[in-house]
């Protein structure tokens, strides 16, 4: 058979979202790939310029549909720096709680999609089942399962309900007991190792060259985690290890993500203990009215207050489940952000597709792209 291009996407089971991977194949071998993004572009950055600071949070939830909290957190950190607002300490811990549960939820979603890609049927549902427990927790204190609108400039919307920490601990116990089962189904299977070992290798130097971050970078042996290297919120007060693997292949990425979930459980236990011991406010006092309430009428006294509000620029960087997400928020004194710019880790990760796909088989595309953990919402924004 001669060479031909096939389109894997935008409607294709491999893509997990709207994007297109054009693949040039010769028989079963991959000669070239060409990722095409942009099918899900909603102009979130531009829409943000026309919204109040707290209204942008709604868009952040839609930025990545499996890691809404992480993107809320990212934006909030940037906006708070731009607006010179300090959140209370309990809010910082609550944000870490959200982030880490979101990391577990996102990684479970990744696990489910990834094992489905290599043909493992049951663990797909195990991953979804356990992610549901995390979503139930989110629902108990935000009222929503995926689009939370929970964080606010200057804190979070509300505190967790009474008894939350106990139910959260139960979920953590359940998850801790499930992790060995996950490993058994994947690492314990000879076929899995045959499929995933030495597959989709992306060495550390190539990662750096292409801006690849997150579990992919750490699986190449680079010990870089923004939670450690550039601590934000309460991470400098929490104990955890950075998950690292050396092989830079699909199995290594699997190992890194599994270890990250275990570390998240470790972080969460500390956070829950802290929350039990330190009650307090979750939203900063003396916030300007014009950013306090979404959909507040424009032109009341809040408008007057805003005039004298100092300008500012905010930059934030967080370790999102998929990698390093950066945000840049410009406050020019207006009631809307002047400019919001995000850096999506997945965009860089799948832009490097040619580096880690060419030379393998067509059948290797799903496991490799699955190990990248694509979330198209944040790629296109």
């Amino acid at each position, binding site marked *: 058979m001669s060479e031909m291009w096939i389109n894997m996407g935008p409607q294709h089971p491999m893509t997990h979202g709207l994007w297109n991977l054009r693949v040039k194949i010769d028989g079963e071998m991959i000669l070239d790939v060409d990722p095409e993004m942009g099918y899900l572009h909603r102009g979130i950055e531009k829409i943000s310029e026309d919204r109040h600071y707290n209204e942008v949070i709604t868009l952040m939830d839609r930025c990545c549909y499996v890691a809404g909290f992480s993107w809320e957190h990212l934006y909030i950190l940037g906006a708070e720096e731009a607006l010179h607002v300090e959140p209370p300490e309990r809010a910082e811990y609550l944000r870490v709680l959200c982030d880490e549960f979101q990391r577990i939820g996102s990684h479970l979603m990744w696990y489910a999609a990834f094992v489905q890609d290599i043909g493992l*049927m049951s663990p797909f549902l195990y991953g979804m089942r356990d992610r549901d427990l995390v979503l139930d927790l989110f629902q108990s204190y935000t009222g929503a399962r995926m689009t939370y609108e929970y964080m606010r400039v200057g804190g979070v919307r509300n505190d967790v309900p009474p008894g939350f920490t106990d139910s959260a601990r139960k979920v953590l116990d359940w998850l801790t007991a499930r992790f060995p089962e996950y490993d058994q189904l994947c690492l314990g299977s000879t076929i899995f190792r045959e499929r995933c070992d030495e597959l989709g290798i992306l060495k550390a130097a190539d990662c750096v060259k292409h801006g690849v971050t997150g579990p992919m970078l750490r699986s190449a042996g680079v010990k870089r985690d923004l939670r450690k290297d550039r601590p934000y919120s309460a991470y400098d007060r929490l104990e955890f290890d950075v998950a690292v693997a050396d092989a830079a292949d699909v199995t290594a990425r699997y190992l890194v993500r599994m270890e990250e979930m275990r570390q998240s459980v470790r972080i969460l236990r500390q956070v829950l203990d802290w929350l039990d011991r330190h009650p307090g406010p979750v939203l900063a006092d003396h916030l300007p009215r014009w950013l306090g309430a979404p959909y507040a009428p424009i032109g009341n006294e809040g408008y007057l207050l805003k005039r004298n509000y100092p300008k500012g620029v905010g930059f934030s960087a967080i370790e999102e489940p998929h990698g390093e997400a950066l945000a840049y928020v410009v406050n020019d004194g207006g009631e809307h952000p002047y400019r919001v710019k995000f850096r999506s880790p997945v965009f860089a990760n799948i832009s490097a597709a040619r580096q880690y796909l060419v030379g393998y088989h067509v059948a290797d595309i799903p496991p490799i792209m699955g190990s990248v953990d694509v979330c198209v919402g944040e790629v296109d924004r």
Partner: protein
Amino acid sequence: MASQTLYSVSNDLATVLLNGLGSILPGPVRAVVTNPDVIVGLSVLIFAAVLLAASMINTIVLIWWERKLLGRFMDRRGAMHVGYAGLLQNFADGLKLFRKNTFQPREADALGFYSGPLAYMVTSLIIFGILPISSGWNSGALPLTLLLALAIFSFAPLFIFVSAWSSNNKYSLMGGMRSAAQMIAYEVPILLAVVAVVIVSGSFDLSTIVYEQQNYWFWGPLVVALIVFVAGMLAEMERIPFDLPEAEAELVEGWNTEYGGMLFAFFMLADYLRALVGSILVVLLFLGGWTLPSWVPSAATSFPLAGIFWFMVKTYAVFGLFVWVRASLPRVRTDQLLRVGWNRMIPLSLLSIFLAAVLVTVKCLPVFGCVPSMGV
């Protein structure tokens, strides 16, 4: 007992029916109706209709069985709503597919596109015409049923490739080529594993093979052949871990990507027909068919249709094993599949032939006993 076949029963039925009909009809018409050729024709029709109904109902129940088992493996309940415990769910699904429009891609080759699924379905059905179900219910008395069944079984890659190629779709074509390569590679070990059974039982007739297992079932002494046969059958059925011709992660639906509605239902049904045939062959060749070991109390085997009952129990249990494998293993890659096929399965099947030859030489085993045809 063994002389009574499904065909002879339908022949009796046709004779009674047509003679009865002839007795109330005027002379010239009666002569036509009671003509022996017409009776033969009607009995063939009855035979085919019974087989079709039985195999179709079994296939659909098999799909239900798979869905329920998979559900349990996945911590859910499977189909629950249509009928008791979802028993009628697949009939509803089939009806839905039947009502759907059948379409054809613009550039597709109509002849291959439409005849492929039909031929695939028909060849899968033919096998049921020759499989013995119970001592009184083997459908036809043919001496080489095993060989014929495997021969028809191996038609499939041709029709899959024809329909894949004529769909004019790149995914279909890749899936079709994978399918052809895979099925041809796994034909060889399957046939070699069957040769081991044939050596021990001394017959190509499935009924005789079952009869020869009255002292011990072949799965014990011929466990290597059983492993090769089951693994090969998994590949022939294109089930996980060998479902890469329709690997939905990379090839959408593989060779049946372009098929919808009833044509898709044909492929689906034929796939499960083949799965049923595979399970039945495992039961017939290695698990003693419709017989039970002699230590089982006779009450378990003396009720009416006990043979068919135990045969179905075994068949569904074997299929349950396939479902278990599907629920817990990932998919292998094409080159790995072919490497396993040629480098591991064929040596293993040759080993099984060697073991069968040893078995024939020693005639009787200390624990198991003797094979009747070799017996003292």
